[in-house]
């Protein structure tokens, strides 16, 4: 009755999104989504290689990969500095930067690399961020991060902000702690999945040329979503710190 997948009969090689089908691994009694883990490891390996290339024989005058990585670090530092301000941004650069680079890598890995060439028994390789478990994990990490930031700076006085400016707002302030990770995770998950579904449906209708601009739009949206996720994470941490 329901479509199991958006099946495009003519050009399934490059784009086909399967929703709700996973390549399950049974690890110590837990079912995990293997296709997500595989791509996550790939992205982590790429980032790791890039950082090794960037820090191998560093010079005063950067060249080659060092140049590239330094500009990436500058970009991340700008995100953190704009939100957190001069006095706090340094210790949060690693967290914000990891979020940005990882999400960016995941979105682009899903959009650029033709994963369809690799056959899996079930499910398919795609951007890891099109699985809601990945984005929820990232969003919950951000929740813990801002709680840690607030508690380590102000101690238990951090909880005073729940009755600010008036105690009447207490339920809304508590609710906000739940809506923040919810909206963060849904935003990223929905955007990435929406891109893939749009491309799949278009490829099913017109297999050639027409989906290309949408694919480019997907690349753009992927980078913007990475930027937004890290900016919002930085903004939440800054809110807890102030």
């Amino acid at each position, binding site marked *: *009755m*329901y*479509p199991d997948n958006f099946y495009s009969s003519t050009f399934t090689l490059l784009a086909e999104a399967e*929703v*709700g089908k996973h390549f399950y691994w049974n690890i110590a009694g837990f079912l995990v989504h293997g296709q997500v883990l595989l791509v996550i490891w790939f992205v982590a390996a790429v980032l790791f290689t890039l950082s090794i290339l960037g820090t191998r024989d560093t010079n005063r005058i950067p060249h080659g990969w060092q140049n590239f990585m330094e500009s990436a670090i500058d970009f991340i530092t700008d995100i953190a500095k704009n939100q957190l301000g001069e006095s706090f941004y340094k210790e949060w650069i690693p967290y914000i930067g990891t979020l940005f680079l990882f999400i960016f890598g995941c979105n682009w890995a899903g959009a650029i690399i033709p994963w369809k060439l690799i056959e899996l028994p079930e499910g398919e390789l795609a951007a890891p961020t099109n699985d809601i478990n990945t984005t929820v994990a990232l969003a919950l990490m951000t929740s813990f991060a801002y709680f840690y930031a607030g508690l380590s700076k102000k101690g238990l006085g951090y909880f005073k902000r729940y009755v600010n400016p008036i105690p009447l707002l207490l339920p809304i302030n508590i609710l906000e702690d739940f809506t923040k990770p919810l*909206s963060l995770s*849904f*935003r990223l*998950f*929905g*955007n990435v*999945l*929406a891109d893939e579904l749009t491309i799949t449906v278009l490829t099913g209708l017109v297999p050639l040329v027409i989906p290309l601009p949408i694919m480019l739009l997907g690349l753009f*949206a992927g980078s*913007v*979503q990475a*930027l*937004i996720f890290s*900016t919002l994470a930085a903004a939440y941490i800054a809110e807890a710190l102030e």
Partner: protein
Amino acid sequence: MDSIISAASVIAAGLSIGLAAIGPGIGQGNAAGQAVEGIARQPEAENKIRGTLLLSLAFMEALTIYGLVVALALLFANPFNS
């Protein structure tokens, strides 16, 4: 599965995206219009305005995406699909 449930789910999925697109559509139109006005008034600030505009457009788009997530849940992970 019950055909009434599937029909209702498909209609609801369509409505959830369609209705969720109204508000952000108005908001994005407003934001883009204001940005164009700002650029016309002060062309040298174009880069900064464009960056802020794209960021805020993505925030508004997220609201439609929430509708999309609901639609996807109805179509592919229907809780009433016993």
